[in-house]
């Protein structure tokens, strides 16, 4: 078990180190001069130009040796300083991210957990039931092959514009101010629903087929055959197979997190939902490199933390890892 976590920590630290380095290196080594790009963008506002020029020179300044720039980057990072946004000048990048995060959590956590539960149940139910396997599971494959934004667009168009049931932009009504009133909460939920459903459906398809494939192997495992040979009812055999098949699904969740997050980003773009994804699009369109960098690092850190939590959950649910026998396959 110590080895298992030792390995994980090496991976996490290396990943974090690598990500920060990439984040630092890209604007410095990519073709073109980011400072000039930025300055052309803000050229219309003379009062900020001088200020920003000084600021950028300090960050990208050629007078400081490269290694010092690198170290300064790390120091700033540990002080929670990801720079200042150009788009929202003079707001700090961290402040923008922190404002967006609650929306992401609100959207992602229920979508992941509910789809994980429902998808696995459904996949297990469909496996080895011939007609379901042949009719409903292809649907699962199609769902997991659906581009997130497309499903979002379809839902926004059909339920939002054509049917007019749900709003399709923002996190709450434009005429409302955040407050703890019923009107506001209702508006929040209304705006939340479509992005949630479009994420949920795609994730659901993925879990369902994943479970279907896993449980078939478990149902063919020796322990399943032994139970059947002793005349145990189908329900017990399936229960065991399900419990064992869910373990690789948990690992799957850890590995899929990156994809899951990407899905959330584009879905937020479709629905102009003010999470990180929305800000990334804004940052890209306005060439706000500090905001892009900040969002990138933030996503990395979040994914690593989520991964770590999943690892711990895995160790708790699988006795084999606890006993240190299969810890090697990090």
């Amino acid at each position, binding site marked *: 078990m*110590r*080895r298992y976590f*030792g*390995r994980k920590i*090496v991976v996490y630290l290396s990943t974090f180190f690598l990500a920060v380095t990439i984040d630092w290196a890209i604007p410095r080594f990519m073709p073109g001069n980011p400072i000039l790009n930025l300055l052309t963008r803000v050229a219309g506002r003379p009062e900020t130009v001088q200020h920003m020029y000084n600021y950028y020179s300090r960050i990208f300044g050629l007078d400081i040796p490269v290694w010092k720039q690198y170290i300064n980057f790390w120091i700033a990072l540990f002080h929670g300083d990801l720079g200042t946004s150009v788009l929202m000048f003079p707001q700090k990048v961290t402040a923008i991210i922190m404002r967006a995060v609650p929306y992401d959590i609100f959207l992602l956590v229920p979508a992941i957990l509910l789809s994980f539960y429902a998808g696995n149940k459904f996949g297990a139910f469909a496996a080895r039931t011939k007609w379901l396997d042949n009719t409903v599971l292809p649907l699962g494959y199609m769902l997991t092959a659906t581009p997130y934004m497309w499903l979002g667009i379809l839902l926004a168009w059909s339920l939002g514009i054509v049917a007019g049931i749900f709003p399709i932009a923002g996190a709450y009504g434009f005429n409302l101010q955040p407050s703890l009133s019923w009107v506001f909460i209702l508006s929040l939920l209304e705006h939340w629903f479509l992005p949630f459903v479009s994420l949920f459906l795609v994730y659901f398809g993925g879990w369902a087929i994943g479970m279907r494939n896993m449980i078939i192997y478990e149902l063919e495992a020796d322990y399943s055959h032994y139970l059947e040979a002793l005349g145990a009812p189908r329900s017990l055999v399936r229960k065991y197979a399900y419990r064992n098949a869910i373990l690789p699904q948990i690992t799957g969740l850890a590995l899929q997190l990156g994809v899951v997050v990407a899905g959330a980003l584009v879905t937020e773009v479709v629905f102009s939902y003010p999470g990180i994804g929305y800000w990334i699009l804004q940052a890209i369109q306005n060439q706000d490199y500090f905001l892009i960098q900040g969002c990138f690092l933030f996503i990395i850190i979040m994914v690593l933390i989520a991964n770590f939590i999943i690892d711990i959950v895995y160790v708790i649910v699988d006795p084999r890892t606890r006993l240190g026998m299969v810890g*090697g396959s990090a």
Partner: protein
Amino acid sequence: MLKLDKISKVYSTGTFGGKLLPAVVDVSFDIGEGEVVSLIGESGSGKSTIGKMILRLITISSGKIIFNGIDISTFKKNTLKSYYKEVQGVFQDPFSSYNPIFKADKIFTIIRQEFFPKMKDKEWEEKVDSSLKAVGLNPDQVLNKFPHQLSGGQLQRFLIARALLLDIKFLVADEIISMLDASTRVDVLNLLAELKSRGLSILFITHDLSLGYYISEKAIILYRGSVVEMGNTEKVYSNSLHPYTKMLMASVPRLDKKWEEVEVELKAKQIENTIGCVYYDRCRVPDKDAGCAGSRPPLIKVEQDHFVACKHCMKE
């Protein structure tokens, strides 16, 4: 011709916070020309590890293996190839020894490519035919077939024929008949005995005591990586001294004698005495003492050609 000098193998289980696992500990013995030596042990005793070390398939952690006066770890590309020309191995699972998607002959083709690239087709065919005949196979029946079309016994002989294509002096036979059916076992065993009479040296690795007795003149009993008893086969069998050897002898199911009443060990072999006698935890010799637990007994000569690693057993 082959001499093992205090060889050990330690497996480490990973780079990060790994454990060290000794598989073979200070094993020394030697095999002369035309001699068959049985290496007998239960699963996990390190017997296959020794075979693989001789075949240079795994590295030796410490100690030396000397073949005709040369340390085999010094062999590099070409010298290693000439080593393989003289030393070959056959393994337990006949089906795993063949690449399932190719025909069984592939193992011959490889030999030709690597060792006899210049040989003419005709000459090669004759060579293959004669070595197949030497192992009692009919070339027409076994050539040009896929492994699953041949029986286990045929496959094992086929492998021996492969070794015979080379000019081998030494063969490592690792459990080569344990997966064969009773009816064909003896034939493969007899084939080994025949090769021996032609001057081939064989290390016969087995867990089956009766097989060891049938074919070898020297027996080595291995327990958890250490030699506990070795010597002339008859002496080791009829005058077993080490409590482990005795226990083994009593547990073997025989056809001529019902099982004797001997205490058998049921506990998991988890507890491990790492500094003392390897058998300390399971040993039932009444006068086992702190000395047994504290230091590993060396192999002591009890009679001509008979050694045992237990100081309490010699008195009898």
